[in-house]
Every structure is written in C-alpha cells, then in structure tokens.
C-alpha cells in the first residue's frame, strides 16, 4: 500500500527545536483543532459511506422493493465474482489503464522534453497544454465522439486506412480506440507537466559530464535522465493509472457501454443508480475499491521507489 511510503517531510527547523513538552503539547492541541474540520469532512464522505457499502453489500437489497431486504452474507460477492460481465469489465478497465498510461508516458515525455528545451513562446505552449487539462471530460468525450462519427466527423476522411463510412462505434475494438483516444488526449498534458517538473530536477552538470565523456543522446537518456527521474515518473504513473482505472465519463458519453465497452465503474454505476440494486451494487463498490488498492500496491512495488525519495529530491 502507499501508506508506508508517505513521508511527513519534517522541517529541519522543527528538529532543531529543543524538546519542550508544554510547548509541544500546546502545538499538538492547536494542530488537532486546525486539522479536525478537514479530516472529519473527508472521512464523513468517504470512510463512513464505504463502511455502509460494506454493510449493505451483505444484503439482498433493492430500492424498488426495500421491504424485501434480507441478509445474504457474501452471496453478492459470489454473484459478482462469478459473473463474466464483471470480469469482462475489469478486463476492459485494466486494458484502458495500461494502454492509455503507456501511450501517455511516451507522448508526455516527448512533450516534456520539448517544453524543457523551449525558450521562446514558453507561455503560449504552457497555456495551450493546460487547455485539455481544463476541458470537462464530458466535453472532450463529445468532441471525440463527433470527430470519429461516420456521418459528421472528420477522422475517417483524414485517416488514409479507413473508408469514409467506417463506423467506429459499430464494434468493440474501434469503440475502444475512440474511448482511449479521448482519454489520452485529455490527460497527456497532465502527465507531461509532471514529467517536466521531474526533468527540471535532473542536474545539468551530470548531463554535461556525460556529454564530455562521449555519451550519445540515447545513452544520456537511459543512463542519466531516466534514472534521475524515477521518482517523478512513478508519481505520474501512479496518479494517472489510478485515475484511468476509474474511467467513467468518457465511456458514458461516447458509447454508454455499447459493444461491451463498459468499465468496472460503469457497471457499478449501472447497478446502483440505474437499477437501484444497492446490495449487489455495494458489493461491486467494495470490489472496485479493493481493486484500486491492489493496482496502487502493484505500481508502487513495480517501481520500488518510495514517495519519500520524491520529496527529498525536490
């Protein structure tokens, strides 16, 4: 889990302060008061409903027939986990996450390299790169759906390998491509800004030294730049991956889950809000939450970097 890796950046000035129990007790009290509203609010809207979901998931409970609510133990989980729909949607979600993050990492890094080099027009580039970040996801979903549309879009006429009447939303793979294109367009800028911040931390002296020693561009990239950016890359990947894993807006707008393009978030939403199945929906909510934790743990393990390092380097 990420928790063990979070460091609470201790201000060196605080360390130097002589231990003074009265004072530290007063500080503790003040700090608690200041932090309390934020903590209470965050827990009230997340921890409490999550516990409630855990509780509701043990019932057969439909809002259309609330009186028939009955305790069923773990049956909802068994139903969910044995349903091919659940696995299909999880598969979709994982695929979207891996493909979009991988593509974004490459394009985002290229963008970051360019932005790192640019001296002129820096403001223009940075302003433009924030526009996709700022555009509402629903709007970018529309923009791309209309762009891929075979009746009034432009993608078909611009792409050399598709016929003009190719229906992107007619089958699974092309629908997925369109969904992922929208996701990638919208979030690559965020990735590139994080990577740009990481690039800024790579020491120029080291790069110069490598250059003097005769390292080629690729060698400098692999031996100097990337290793020194590991922490920044990991943070970017972790944030984006967990964000991609929650994908919902784009799918809702672009295909509404047609052709088997549903994500795990979408399945949960459908059960709870559209079908009022709070029992099974809650079980799905819990499974979704657990799978996010698994994804986070895997990414943190994979990179073997802790967030504390990211702090110290900055």
């Amino acid at each position, binding site marked *: 889990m*990420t*928790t063990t890796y*979070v460091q*609470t950046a201790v201000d060196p000035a*605080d360390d130097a302060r002589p231990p003074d129990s009265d004072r530290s007790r007063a*500080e*503790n009290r003040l700090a608690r008061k*200041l*932090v309390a509203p*934020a*903590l209470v*609010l*965050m827990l*009230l*809207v*997340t921890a409490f*409903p*999550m516990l*409630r*979901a855990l509780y509701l998931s043990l019932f057969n409970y439909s809002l259309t027939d609330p009186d028939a609510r009955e305790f069923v133990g773990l049956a909802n989980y068994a139903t969910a986990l044995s349903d091919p729909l659940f696995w299909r949607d999880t598969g979709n979600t994982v695929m979207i996450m891996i493909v979009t993050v991988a593509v974004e990492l490459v394009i985002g890094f290229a*963008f970051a390299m*360019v932005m790192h*080099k640019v001296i002129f027009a820096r*403001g223009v580039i940075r*302003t433009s790169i*924030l*526009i996709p970040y*700022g*555009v*509402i*996801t*629903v709007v970018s979903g*529309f923009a791309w759906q*209309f762009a891929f549309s075979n*009746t*009034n*879009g432009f993608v078909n006429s611009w792409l050399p390998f598709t016929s003009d009447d190719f229906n992107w939303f007619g089958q699974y793979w092309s629908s997925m491509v369109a969904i992922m294109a929208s996701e990638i*367009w919208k979030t690559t800028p*965020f990735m590139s*800004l*994080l990577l740009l*911040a990481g690039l800024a931390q790579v020491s120029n002296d080291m790069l110069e030294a490598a250059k003097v020693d005769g390292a080629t561009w690729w060698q400098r990239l692999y031996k100097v730049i990337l290793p020194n950016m590991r*922490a920044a890359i990991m943070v970017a990947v972790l944030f984006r991956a967990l964000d991609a894993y*929650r994908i*919902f*807006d784009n799918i*809702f707008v672009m295909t509404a889950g*047609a052709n088997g393009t549903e994500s795990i*978030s979408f399945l949960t*939403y459908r059960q*709870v*809000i559209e079908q009022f199945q*709070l029992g099974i*929906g*809650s079980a799905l*909510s819990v499974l*979704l*939450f657990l799978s*996010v934790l698994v994804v986070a743990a895997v990414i943190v393990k994979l990179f073997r970097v802790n967030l504390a390092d990211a702090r110290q380097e*900055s």
Partner: protein
Amino acid sequence: MGKSLKANIGTIVGCALILIWCLLPVAWIISLSFKSQQAVTNGSPGFFPSKGGGAGWSNYTDVLQDEQFRRAIINSVGISLIATLLSVIIATLAAYAIARLEFKGKKFVLTTALVIAMFPVVSLVGPLFDMWRTFGIYDTWLGLIIPYMSFTLPLAIWTLSAFFREIPWEMEQAAQVDGATAWQAFRKVIVPLAAPGVFTAAILTFFFAWNDFVFGISLTSTERARPIPAALSFFVGADPFNRPASLLAAGAVVATVPIVILVLFFQRKIVAGLTAGAVKG
C-alpha cells in the same frame, strides 16, 4: 552550428505538434458549433462547416435561450464556487498545521488525503445516494457541495502544504521581535506570502469541481441542482448515437469558456500548483 540548427528545428516541430495536439479538438468543437443542425443531420463530414452548412451564432442563441442549460450553468457556477471557497478555507487550516506545526497524526492526515485522492468515486455513489435521500439533501446544492469538498480537500491540502513548506516562517518571529503583535506579524508577513498558494489551490479545486460528472449525474435528478457536465450528457435524448451535435457543441463551448479564461490568466500558477502538489507533495 549545423547541429544546433537541427536541434532548433526539432524543438520547433515539437512545439507545433504540441499546439496541434492541444488545440485541434478544441478547434473542431468550435467549428462544429457553427454548423447548422440540418447540415449535421444530413451528414456533413469534414472539419469546417461546408458551404451553406454554416449556422452563424444560431446554435449559441438556441443554447443560451434554453432554460435547462441556463439553470445548469448557474448550478455549476454556484456549487463549484461554494465548494471551492469552503474547501480552500478548511484546507488552509490543515495545511498550515501540517507545514508549520509538529503534531502526532500528521502522517495519518496526509495519508488519508492521499488515499481519498485515489478513491474510486463511483464506489461512493451508492451509499451516498441512499444516505442523501434519507437526509433530504438528494438533488440539492448541498448534496453536491459536500462530496465535492471532500474530494477537493486532498488536492488542496497537498498543494497548499507543499507551498506553505517553502514559506520562511522565521520572518514572522522576526517581525514580532521588531515590535509587531502576533496577529500583525501573521497578517503583514505570512498572509502575503501564502496568498498565491491559496489562490492556486482555489483554481485547481474549482477545475476539479467544475469537471465532476459522476456525482453530478448520480446525486441529482432534476434541474434543481444538476451541474453542466451532467446536463450536457442529458441534453436531448437517451440515444448516444443521434445527438444534436452542433447544438451540443455550442453548449460544450459555453461550458468550456470559463475554464479557458482561468487558464489564460493563471497559467503560471496552475502549472506551479499541479507540480507542487504531485511531485513535491
């Protein structure tokens, strides 16, 4: 010389690609918003409105005259602003404590914030839907403000505590030594230093609230509280394949304008905030 020229060309091409990447879909949706309904329905592929297929500003006037759309904009502005204001105030208190004071449980607060930032929003929708109906705040501004706040707080706390850590707090004591009262020292020295960070956190928080979709469609049922992203998705019809594209495009442009204005004015701050919260945080 030849090498630096080559590098320069590479950078220029790179810049051009970035600009195309960022602006093409935006240009496309603007172009679409000027096509006439009829041209779109009859099928008018191509990037720009074809000859005779233009609609001038009529899509915009139609959208702006739409009562539901107007309500949605008001809802979005109101809910996002209130959520931003409240969450920045609360986050400022917390971030001040985190950056300035030593206390037990600091790690717990930061970890909680991080976990919530990664929380799958949809998994809360069911229980909240149920609870809000019991409390009677389903389909109200309050019913959206509360979840927005809890989800914007982590972002604001991380961004702000990263900013606050950079503030030379000793200056406050120095001012007191020079004869200022504690309050004067705080107001005259710390507040001006902290203000840009607070402002940045506010912009990011506003973006977040403005962009929300899951809560917007799940916790509202009428135009009483439905925010703009949800309203756009419900705009005419359940059939996602036959939407009034050009009208929607005009609506989308209107909904995007406030964000673009914020980006244009505060580009520097937003970049600083995004990277401070994530990389340094």
